[in-house]
């Protein structure tokens, strides 16, 4: 009996280990999430300064019946200066510059967009929340301390006093930073957004998926179902396992040397980035897919063959559907890795400052991880929270991707 007790204790222990391992893994996710969220949440709000804006026709080159194109092309720098003068009466030239620095540099763009959306506002006064500059924003959010000597601050004492007086008048507030979701990269942290990188990653992953998934699936089917084990399979198998171990940066070299160098594909574009990521993901998918193909019992194949299905039909109708969940897991993980990789993108030019939002797989673009990497390298304090927010967005992207795959996977999973 004591042997049974031992066995049961072993059973309990084993189950506990399993549970412990799972909990620990989940706990790691939690910690990392916490790390990211605690610094990143700030990026979703931005500090604004409330001002009455008089859309003075004297300072605006366009009129209420100008076309949208004209409105978008005109300059609003003077109007912006005028607004600041009105909001802070009696500034001399030197102080004006200091106060101007408290507002976002793209203030005039904000005004422009407002006019473009409400053309008949010209000549009227509107109360607007104007975005503050990132330096001010960081002070207000407490990410940059106020109490260090003036020389070590980007916001000087005079600006601080203005800030305090604005604050006491209740003119400082915070709004949701939708720019973060609609803008491309920018070197002004307050206007920097993730959309460009998001689209870049989206196109790259689309290419990666369209390349790696079908080819990975077919290759594993070939190896598991169609060739008799022998020299060729061995060569390919060794090859694939070896490719899995090739560091991602080397795939970057491949992209640079072959795709760009030999095939003359363009630099910096998601097409090449996606292909390189696809090369990288391919072995992961193949290895996972082969493992799950192997799990399909031979009796299923025999059943299909016996009713006169061809090998091809047997594989495509019965074997692949049963192995798809495993293939999908490999794809999820491979794509997750691809989504998080910077190194190979660096060499094919997809780690870059790109402001314009790419419209397709042939436009210059950067990817989410590249963007995060670039922001994390930027000296400006405002990019610190952007980095974390970028990571949050990347994770959301990942979660959406995973959810889709998990839903598909669950649909395909047959219990038997």
């Amino acid at each position, binding site marked *: 009996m004591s042997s049974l007790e031992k066995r049961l204790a072993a059973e309990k222990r084993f189950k506990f280990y399993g549970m412990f391992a799972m909990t620990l893994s989940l706990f790691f996710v939690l910690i990392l999430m916490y790390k990211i969220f605690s610094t990143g949440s700030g990026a979703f709000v931005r500090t604004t300064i409330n001002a009455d804006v008089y859309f003075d026709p004297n300072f605006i080159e366009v009129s209420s019946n100008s076309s949208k194109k004209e409105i978008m092309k005109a300059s609003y720098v003077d109007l912006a200066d005028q607004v600041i003068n009105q909001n802070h009466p009696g500034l001399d030239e030197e102080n004006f510059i200091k106060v101007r620095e408290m507002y976002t540099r793209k203030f005039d763009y904000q005004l422009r967009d407002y006019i473009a959306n409400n053309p008949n506002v010209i000549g009227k006064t509107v109360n607007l929340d104007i975005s503050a500059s990132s330096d001010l924003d960081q002070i207000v959010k407490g990410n940059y301390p106020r109490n260090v000597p003036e020389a070590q601050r980007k916001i000087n004492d005079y600006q601080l006093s203005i800030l305090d007086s604005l604050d006491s008048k209740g003119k400082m507030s915070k709004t949701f930073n939708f720019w973060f979701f609609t803008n491309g990269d920018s070197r002004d942290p307050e206007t920097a957004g993730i959309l460009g990188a998001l689209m870049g990653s989206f196109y790259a992953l689309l290419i990666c998926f369209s390349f790696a998934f079908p080819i990975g699936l077919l290759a594993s089917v070939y190896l598991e179902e169609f060739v*008799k*084990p022998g020299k060729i399979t061995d060569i390919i198998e060794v090859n694939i396992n070896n490719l899995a171990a090739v560091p991602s940066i080397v795939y970057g070299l491949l992209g640079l040397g072959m795709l760009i160098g030999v095939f003359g594909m363009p630099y910096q574009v998601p097409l090449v980035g996606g292909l390189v990521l696809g090369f990288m993901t391919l072995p992961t998918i193949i290895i996972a897919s082969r493992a799950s193909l192997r799990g399909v019992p*031979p*009796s*299923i*194949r*025999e*059943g*299909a*063959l*016996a*009713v*006169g*299905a*061809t090998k091809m*039909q047997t594989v495509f*109708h*019965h074997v692949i559907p*049963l192995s798809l969940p495993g293939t999908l897991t490999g794809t999820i993980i491979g794509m997750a890795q691809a989504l998080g990789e910077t190194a190979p993108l660096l060499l094919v030019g997809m780690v870059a400052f790109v402001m314009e939002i790419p419209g397709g797989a042939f436009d210059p673009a950067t990817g989410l991880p590249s963007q995060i990497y670039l922001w994390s390298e930027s000296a400006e304090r405002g990019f610190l929270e952007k980095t974390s927010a970028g990571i949050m967005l990347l994770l959301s992207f990942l979660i959406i991707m995973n959810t889709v795959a998990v839903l598909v996977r669950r649909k395909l999973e*047959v*219990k*038997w």
Partner: protein
Amino acid sequence: MVDQNSNYALQTSEVYVHYGKKMAINNVALNFPKNEVTSLIGPSGCGKSTFLRCLNRMNDVIDICNVKGKFLLNGNVDIYSPDIQVETLREKVGMVFQKPNPFPKTIYENVAYGPKIHGIASSQNELDEIVKDSLHRAGLYEEVKDRMDDIATGLSGGQQQRLCIARAIAIRPEIILMDEPCSALDPIATAKIEDLINELKENYTIIIVTHSMSQASRVSSKTAFFHLGNLVEYGETGKIFTKPDKEQTNDYITGRFG
């Protein structure tokens, strides 16, 4: 020697089968007359399944299995010739396996699969009809008619076996190979299958592996007795069970074997 006799649905000779180095069938020659039922009997492990699986080239899928010999379908088609399309062969030579192996799909799809890929039905209605008819003949229809969309692996052992029979007859093969089709069936279901066999033999040729002597004598006109990979005796069922030529056969059927 194979003679080109078209009274035979299948003719085999000089059949040798090896699993790797292990010999499983040793120089067997056996012909199967058209529209008759032939039973293969013999002790477990003697090579009945192996031999049966040669007849629709099912052994092709086992890597280590090596089949040699002559196999003629309808007196003229060499089923192991490279020109032969193994799928057409298998469409003509249907099979029910010893261990039921339904697809992990719905009951309906299990039966409809064959007709679908062979384009046997010209319309959905016709397909439904085929499925229903096949299940009916296999004696399963009543039990599953409300569960057509359940996964087939949730059926009981005997139900799975009948489903596999339904699946095999749904494509209307010329020859049906059955590897112990009634092993998991109760007497009534067995009787139904035997009725089915009797009905089918009007148009089809049937080869059945069975352990039940009584079944063999009930359904088959010819019987072949295997032992240790050898064909010991072949002949009219009646004769085999009453006065076999060989000692071994006699021992086996009287249960004095081994």
